């Protein structure tokens, strides 16, 4: 579903060349649920942007659902759903339902398919109470659920999430995690989850990738991850060791 082969991305920041992503290669098959970890500035957001087509890679190859995001942006957009944790994909001034209607028109979703999908998402994400509230008046948890629904209205094959649980309370986090698990299990949607919250990784991801200084530092199952530092008992300590390890 997702293929990166030697992908690289450099930026020119005031005459110096910064390698945000360097020689990144990994493959994610359909139906997988992958966690994407990394310290701040490691290149996570840059990877996400390259997958969506917002940013073009400076080297290497990127394919999502068999399509090149930088060349087939609009075609790919129909098959991919994106959630940015730190900003919303919804329209700020409009009621939530109007945002959904706009998305229906933008993605050309068939009316009956849209309505049944909307009902389903309203139920599972519990959106009913605030469907008519303007997005700017929603709490963070409500807005995040709205963003999730918005990303899934067109039944994408791939769901990419950039720190979706950031700033949420325990209850909201739990409900979103449960929703994502069910989505992956029942619909077979491929999920790529970027997060700082190791609880997300523990509960959701069978496979974990760790990026640091633009390079892939680890790629394996959760058990493999714990095995890299058998003397450490918590996942926090294991990951910290990996972060500081790659820094050396």
């Amino acid at each position, binding site marked *: 579903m997702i293929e990166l082969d030697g992908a690289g991305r450099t930026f020119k920041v005031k005459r110096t060349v910064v390698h945000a992503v360097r020689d990144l290669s990994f493959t994610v098959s359909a139906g997988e649920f992958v966690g994407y970890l990394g310290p701040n500035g490691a290149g996570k957001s840059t990877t996400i942007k390259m997958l*969506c087509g917002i940013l073009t890679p400076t080297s290497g190859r990127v394919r999502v659902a068999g399509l090149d995001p930088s060349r087939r942006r609009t075609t790919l957009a129909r098959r991919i759903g994106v959630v940015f944790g730190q900003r919303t994909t919804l329209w700020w001034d409009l009621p939530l339902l109007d945002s959904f209607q706009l998305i229906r028109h*933008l993605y050309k979703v068939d009316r009956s398919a849209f309505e049944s999908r909307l009902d389903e998402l309203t139920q599972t994400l519990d959106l009913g109470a605030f469907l008519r509230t303007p997005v700017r008046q929603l709490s963070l948890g409500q807005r995040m659920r709205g963003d999730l629904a918005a990303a899934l209205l067109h039944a994408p094959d791939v769901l990419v999430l950039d720190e979706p649980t950031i700033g949420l309370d325990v209850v909201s986090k739990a409900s979103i995690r449960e929703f994502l698990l069910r989505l992956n299990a029942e619909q077979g949607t491929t999920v790529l989850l970027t997060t700082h919250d190791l609880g997300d990784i523990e509960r959701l991801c069978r496979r974990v990738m760790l990026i640091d200084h633009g390079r892939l530092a680890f790629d394996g199952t959760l058990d493999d991850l714990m095995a890299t530092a058998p003397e450490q008992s918590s996942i926090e300590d294991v990951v910290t060791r990996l972060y500081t390890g790659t820094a050396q």
Partner: protein
Amino acid sequence: MVRTYFLLVWTWTRASAAYPASFALMCVLGFVTAALDVAVILVIFANTTTLAGFSRDEVLFLYGAAALPFTICDTFVSNIDRVSQHIKAGTLDTVLIRPVSAWVQLTADRFNANRIGRILQACLVLGYAVAALGLDWERTWMIPVMVLTGVVIFSALWTLGGALQFVLTDAPEVISSFTYGGLQLTQYPFSIYGRDLVSGVTYVLPLAFVNWQPGLYVLGRDDPFGTPEFLRFLGPAAALVLSLPAALAWRQGIRHYRSTGS
């Protein structure tokens, strides 16, 4: 693409229809603001019967013929000049995730149906002038043609402005001096301007084809600058000539954003 645009526009209009009083107020306010320019023309003609060889009703005709395409574009296309705001807020990324061209999304973004007040004002002025002038009926076919070419020219101008905002992200106001300046320029007969300026807006940035050149034909007048007759009919060609670089510049702007991530 057109269908998507109108569906987006309709959703925004429905949202503002929830507040009808506010909508009506904004229509009226738009009308009033636009009417100030007409008030200036009327004050000028309270002091003279001709301005650079044109009568009051002729000037009102030229004003209406410029204001109508401008206000139409102001309603349907002008939101594109908020590109720098979107870049700074990070919302351009949200636009690029969607399976619709960024241009369609940005021009429809926060569509303001109440700008119809301004379109109405321009229609009224144009209608009055056409009625008051007693034009040669055989020439009036040019009027809808000039409004249409005007819409294309102003749209191209706005798109160029939007494209420039990808590089001039911190100075969007500079660009508005070209779009709104374009309206200011075309409101009055070009005979008031210097020869160099008129050449510039005829052969470089073809604003002369919004209302001046075709307008001379409708009014049955010769060009005080002595341009040949066939120029009056080049409006559509000029619109096309401007649209091409505008479209290319826009595509280049998007490409620039996607390759620098600024």
